[in-house]
């Protein structure tokens, strides 16, 4: 910065950044804001716990000194197979949920509650770019917590097991990657849509928790009342679990988590698409530079 700062207004005729650079301004500021919160940092660090345990277990099974200390028999009990990756993906999706629950609601609500949108949208950026920028703030950390960690653990194990193992477990890679993205997109869009709809962060957080637990309860009641399974379609978590189990293979899923979804994967994908479309519709309706006065 120059030593002397001008007191009068001066026109600017310096360098300008590209549209791509301008798009990354919102995520960049968002990330900086994100980790100013100690709770976010704690949550983020805590999400490394399971992947670190997995990495340690994989390393231990391949290390002669560790084998000598603990013995082959003991380490045989710690199997890192498809079932373990299902547990890891499922556990990490919960961390992703709590991270989205904490980080998501203030993202839009803070701008909207103080009428900040006209300030953003009078810049050379569209509503889509604004929403995408805010979405990126969630997608980045949620990706680290879910698929980046999952794929890293898979690659780490593959580096010991060899290329044949990697090829044989190709479906695991796909399942971890796609399954994680289902969780990321679902949580991010729901968090942003509720943030835009309710504005107050605590209300949005409450509503997000409610969408998880209350709708799950409602789904159970509907199933009970009508003696059917379709009620589970009302619960986003049931939908998510159904998609994950279809990606990993339903029998494997049941073996690992003892959860058997009672709706078809196809209907779960359709409901997932509908939830995403509804969230986007809410976002496009609420994110405007002006208030519609009726």
């Amino acid at each position, binding site marked *: 910065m120059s030593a002397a*700062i001008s007191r009068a207004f001066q*026109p600017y005729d310096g360098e*300008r950044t590209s549209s791509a650079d301008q798009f990354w301004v919102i995520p960049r500021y968002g990330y900086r804001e994100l980790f100013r919160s100690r709770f976010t940092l704690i949550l983020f660090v805590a999400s490394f716990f399971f992947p670190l345990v997995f990495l340690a277990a994989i390393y231990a099974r391949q290390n002669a000194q560790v084998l000598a200390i603990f013995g082959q028999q003991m380490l045989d009990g710690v199997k890192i197979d498809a079932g373990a990756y299902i547990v890891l993906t499922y556990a990490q999706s919960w961390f992703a949920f709590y991270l989205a629950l904490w980080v998501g609601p203030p993202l839009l609500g803070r701008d909207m509650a103080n*009428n900040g949108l*006209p*300030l953003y949208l*009078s*810049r*050379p950026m569209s509503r889509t770019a604004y929403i995408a920028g805010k979405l990126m703030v969630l997608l980045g950390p949620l990706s680290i917590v879910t698929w980046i960690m999952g794929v890293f653990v898979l690659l780490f194990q593959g580096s010991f097991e060899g290329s044949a193992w990697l090829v044989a477990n190709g479906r695991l890679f796909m399942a971890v990657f796609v399954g994680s993205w289902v969780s990321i997109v679902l949580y991010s869009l729901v968090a942003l849509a509720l943030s835009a709809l309710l504005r107050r962060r605590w209300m949005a957080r409450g509503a997000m928790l409610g969408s998880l637990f209350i709708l799950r309860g409602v789904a159970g009641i509907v199933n009970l009342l009508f003696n059917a399974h379709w009620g589970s379609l009302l619960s986003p978590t049931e939908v998510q679990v159904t998609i994950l189990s279809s990606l990993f293979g339903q029998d494997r899923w049941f073996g690992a988590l003892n959860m058997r979804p009672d709706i078809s994967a196809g209907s779960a994908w359709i409901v997932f698409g509908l939830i995403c479309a509804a969230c986007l519709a809410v976002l496009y309706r609420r994110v405007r530079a*002006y208030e519609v006065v009726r």
Partner: protein
Amino acid sequence: MSEVIRLEGLGVRLGGRPILHELTVRLKGRAVGLLGPNGAGKTTLVHTLLGFHAPSVGTAQVLDHDIRDPRGLKAIRAAVGYMPERDAFLGDVSAIRQVRLFAELSGLPPKAALERAHEALIAVGLGEARYREVRTYSLGMKQRAKLAQAIAHGPRVLFLDEPTNGLDPAGRARMLQIIAEIRDSGVTVVLSSHLLHDVEQVCDEVLVLKDGHVALHADLAAQRQANTRFLDVEVRGDRPALAQALAAGGCEVALHGRWRLKVVLPAAWGMRDVYAAAAASDAQVRRLTYRRHSLEDLFLHAMGLPTAFAPDVEGTSAVPQAIPPKEAADVRRD
């Protein structure tokens, strides 16, 4: 002077209701005042020029970029600054951080944005408070913070929507002074306001809207110039003879009240000529004053309301604007 804003049959409908009715006007002043009563369409016009509303008919250009063209709109937004009417800020964020963010979003590199954010906040008088969160500011400070974010990226056109709303007289004077400084630095200012005094103080061109129509488009600078040649003369003696003498010399003249004449002088005439005509007509000039049409007169006239010169106000038959020679002749015949 080149046109900054061109409206070509611009119409806007919101919720099925027409808000702006095919406006056609070319604005080229250094500072343009958008006037009109509440609901006249001022804010809608500004929003449309920023691309917040799509025109239902016609189009508009800002700095030769068409608002209907997405690329043009992007170029417009990169070249303008906007200060909204209502409180607008980001929660839990300091002023410097907020202004820097918006400067970066307008295309400034991070380092330049930080430098410009400091400059803008100092220029609007928030230098000491720039590290405080905007939500802790007083109303006047919030207004100035809004102005800072609108100017930090060095816009060529600045849209200000009611910038003095809610400010005390000192704050208002300070805000108008800052706006005048920005105008003098070469930025075109579009000031939307319902406060005539603010517009009169800052603007050299005015567009008055009424129910979404253009009620008046006036060059205030030229108007001010013209007003210096508008005389109100109180005479004794042969008033009709003086009126005839003035009319014969090319003046526009109207008799008004018992003793007075309203005169619009031609360019070649000076005060001395008026006195000479009076002496030649055997009339005594008892009082001679410049009558200025204030912006208020123009506004009220545009709104179809009685002005300060109207008979019901002063009890005279004065007309608010220059009297054409034919009408002057009619008055003389009376």
